[in-house]
Every structure is written in C-alpha cells, then in structure tokens.
C-alpha cells in the first residue's frame, strides 16, 4: 500500500469518526486490473477500502452536485479540485458542505495503452513511481509509467490541487510548458474537406451512449439538450450529422470551463479521442483570452461569463 493511500484512509477515518462529513467520495479497487471504481465511504470500516494509485480514472467532482444536502469529502487531484472550484463558482454546490482532500497527482494510466503493449489478458498490474508491471498467463512486462499515461495527464501542468482543506502528500513537481495540441494543430492545418474528413473519421465509432456527458463534471444540467424532445435541439439518430451536432454543441458548452481532466475519453467505450474536439475549444479560449485556464482560483470567472469592453473578437467583421 502506498503512502498516499495510507494517509488518505487516515484522513477519511478521522472525518467520518468525528462526523465532520457524511460521505467520503474516493476510489476503491475495481473488479478488473487497471480500473478502480468510484466509492462512497460512509463509515470508518468502509474508509479502509479507499485507495489512490494510477488507476483512479474519471472525475469525482461529477458526483458532487448529486450530493444535495450531504456533507461530502472529496479526494481531489489538480483537475478535480479545479472542477470543484467551478461547481462552487457556478453555484452548483455549497462550499460549506464540501471538504476537499487534496491529492497531488502523478497522472493516471491509460489502460488501452497498457493492453496494447502486452500479448494477452492482464490478470494483475502493479505500479511504482516510475514503472508499471503487467502480468498475465505466460507474460510479465514492465513499462515506463511515462509512456502509458493518459494523453491529458502526460502534459498536465496542474497536478497539485488548487484548493484543499487538507493534503495527503507533499506537492509534486509541475511540468513547465509541455507540448500541447499537436493533433489539433495538424487538423487545423488541413483544408476544409480534410478537416471534415478527420472529424467524421474521429466520430464514426460513436454509439451516442452519452457516457462522455455523464462522466463530465461540467454536464450537470437536469435536462441535457440532447434529451430534450420539445423542442428537439439535436437529431437523435446515428446519422453522422446528428453525431457531429451532439459533439460540437457539447464541446461548445465546455468553452472556458473544461479543465482537461480527460474523464470523457476515459469512459468512452469506443475509445474516441473526444478531446480532439473539446480541446480545440479549450485551445481557442487559451489563445484568445491570454492563456486563461479554467478555474485555477475561486475569484476569476471564466471569460465567456463576463463582458469587457476590450474583449477580443477576431471573428467579428466591421
């Protein structure tokens, strides 16, 4: 058991025993290797199941708006803490009811990359700070942790929580100016037909299960635009134009709010790189609004929620 898990359980038990919170939202070991499952600990015995490692995929902040009236502690690394800030700023949760257990993060592992690198079914996977070892029938393969990180984690510059009540380990070193958006820039450089083709190919496996929306901490609307039937904003069929409309509209709703936590891609059963679309919006906001990154503190509102006389508007014709 790693030091962060030990510390996490200690904090969770203290909070639950002293009845400071009703529930601690974290992860426990999943039923298959490389995938932990979200877990809601309500007493100190259950707190002993909580853990933290490189398989804690998904964004726990998505559960907070559903905790109405309960006092909840949430385990939050950099991205999740930013989403908690966002939910507080957007008044979806009461900050008095939330206790943030800060968790400096070293990035989550991408199970798809690990599965692709081994010859058979993985029955056990163990990791340390630098390596991941996957074992199965007749093989044992050790991979560099940095080679199998999620595509958002390997370039993350906010590994440490931006807001927390208590922290479970020393802060981790942050990356400085990583290379970002290579694939998005490559698509941008294509002519319109090439871009259309790239995006259609990207979205062609989509089965419209809406797992990306359900996992997203930004998508807390009680009724989503895609579910609405009167008026029907978006076609519900598998037609490529309906699929495209869904993804473009959702991406636009994340403008200036996305923390690049990667939950949408992690939960996609078809392995679609959804962030090639939402990341484009994130990139535009960063470029147009002077390097803005969503929800780094409680005071700065997202640029699209405020009006300034000198707002950049490169798309407006005189």
């Amino acid at each position, binding site marked *: 058991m790693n030091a962060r898990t030990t510390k996490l359980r200690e904090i969770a038990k203290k909070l639950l025993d002293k009845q400071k919170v009703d529930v601690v939202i974290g992860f426990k070991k999943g039923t298959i290797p490389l995938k932990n499952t979200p877990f809601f600990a309500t007493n100190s015995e259950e707190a002993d199941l909580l853990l933290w490692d490189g398989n804690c995929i998904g964004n726990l902040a998505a559960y907070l708006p559903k905790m109405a009236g309960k006092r909840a502690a949430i385990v939050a690394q950099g991205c999740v803490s930013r989403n908690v800030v966002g939910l507080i700023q957007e008044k979806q949760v009461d900050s008095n009811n939330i206790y943030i257990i800060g968790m400096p993060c070293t990035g989550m592992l991408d199970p798809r990359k690990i599965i692709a690198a081994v010859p058979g079914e993985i029955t056990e996977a163990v990791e340390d700070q630098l390596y991941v070892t996957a074992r199965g029938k007749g093989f044992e393969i050790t991979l560099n942790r940095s080679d199998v990180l999620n595509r958002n984690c390997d370039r993350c510059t906010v590994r440490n929580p931006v807001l927390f009540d208590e922290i479970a380990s020393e802060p981790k070193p942050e990356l400085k100016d990583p290379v970002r958006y290579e694939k998005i820039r490559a698509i941008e450089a294509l002519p*319109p037909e090439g*871009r259309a083709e790239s995006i259609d190919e990207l979205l062609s496996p989509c089965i419209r299960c809406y797992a990306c929306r359900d996992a997203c901490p930004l998508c807390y609307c009680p009724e989503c635009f895609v579910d609405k039937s009167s008026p029907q904003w978006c076609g519900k069929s598998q037609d490529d134009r309906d699929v495209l409309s869904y993804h*473009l509209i959702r991406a636009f709703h994340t403008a200036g709010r996305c923390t690049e936590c990667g939950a949408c891609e992690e939960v996609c059963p078809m392995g679609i790189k959804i962030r090639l679309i939402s990341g484009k919006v994130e990139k535009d906001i960063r470029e147009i609004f002077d390097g803005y990154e969503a929800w780094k503190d409680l005071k700065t509102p997202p640029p699209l929620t405020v009006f300034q006389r000198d707002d950049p*508007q490169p798309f407006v014709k005189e």
Partner: protein
Amino acid sequence: MKSLLEYAGLEPGRLHFSWISSAEGEKFANFATSVVESVTALGPIKRFAKDEVSVGDRGVEL
C-alpha cells in the same frame, strides 16, 4: 463557435458575424450583400445539411 465549426469542416466564408446597430441601415445592407456574395460563391452547403432524399434512399418511407 466560428472557429469550432470551421475546425469541423465548415468552409471559411459561410459563417459571418458583425455588430450592427439598428441605426446603421447602410452598414447592414452592405454586410448582407457581402454575406450573400460570399455564400453564393461557395454554392449549396454539403457539410451539416441533411438531404431529405437520402432518408428515402435508406428505405425509410417519406
């Protein structure tokens, strides 16, 4: 939004934005003319638009 739609394959020149006051009649007329010219030059839209005939082609009764 313009940037996102063009990223998804909309031709530049199809979507236009401008601030025009209700008092700026001439500006509005000139802008509308330039939009029509620009879009006419591009021809009918292929991206994003659904063709009703294609629904019939797929065996759905219209």
